[in-house]
């Protein structure tokens, strides 16, 4: 186990690097932009409904991938098992949604 010692102020002598806030602020800005695009596509009106739906879903999925990757650390080393479990969860959730829509639309 590697245990670096921290001085009270956060320390200068480190073998590891602390990641700064910059990357997370970039993720935040991207999230804001994706959200704005989604809201604008609806608020502007006149956008073809099918096209708007596609834009909305793409923006949502992109934002979720960004936030789960960076903010929930899924892109970091040692997260294969969490990724597998989350994908498993999403797969079953997706199955439920497809099943419900199939029921309603093609009954």
């Amino acid at each position: 186990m590697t245990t670096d010692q921290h001085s009270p102020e956060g320390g200068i002598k480190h073998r590891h690097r602390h990641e700064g806030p910059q990357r997370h602020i970039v993720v935040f800005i991207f999230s804001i932009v994706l959200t704005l695009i989604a809201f604008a596509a609806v608020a502007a009106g006149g956008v073809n409904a099918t096209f708007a739906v596609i834009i909305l879903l793409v923006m949502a999925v992109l934002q979720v991938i960004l936030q789960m990757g960076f903010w929930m650390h899924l892109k970091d080393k040692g997260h294969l098992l969490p990724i597998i479990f989350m994908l498993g969860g999403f797969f079953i959730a997706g199955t439920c949604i497809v099943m419900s829509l199939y029921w309603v639309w093609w009954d």
Partner: protein
Amino acid sequence: MTTPHAEAANNTLPYEPEKATLEGRNKVLGFWLFLGGEAVLFGTLFATFLALRNQTNDGPTANELFHLPLVAAATFILLVSSLTSVFAIQAMHRNRPALLRNWLLVTVGLGLGFLILEIYEFSQYIRHEEFGMTTSAFSSAFYTLVGFHGAHVAFGILWIFVLILQMSRKGLTVVTAPKVYVSAIYWHFIDVVWVFIFTVVYLLGKVG
């Protein structure tokens, strides 16, 4: 090997203290298993909502009901709170408990703001739009899905607040750090679910 609390007294905290002990790593992994289950749970609520969203039973439709500025405000508040909980974890990794506590307090405050907006929104629907739980299949599905998310926010606020109190007594140690880390993951997950809610419930409701 020093005990966790002695470690804190000497003010030496391992890098990434949430992963420094086996118990901590197990907590994080166990929490991911829970989140996989949460994803399924919310998936079923989304499936129900999508199936019933047009069954309005002569009550208000999504397009008549929703006001985008309110939804945009709630979205912005929750997104900022997600960022502040990232800052909290970064403060934790730098072993700065006071800064960590402050960012957690900001996160909890923003969460409260979100919750107040949601309560206001629901009360408007019930009092002025005659849109109650039993108005239509759409209203039941709406309140169940969005309310369930709101309940998660309320639980998160309570949880993080209790952690702040606990840290004020026990300090930031390899025992308390995994709890804080896991609560931050939970908070991000709440934000991720909200991304799907504002997309699927509100924006798709406006599109039709």
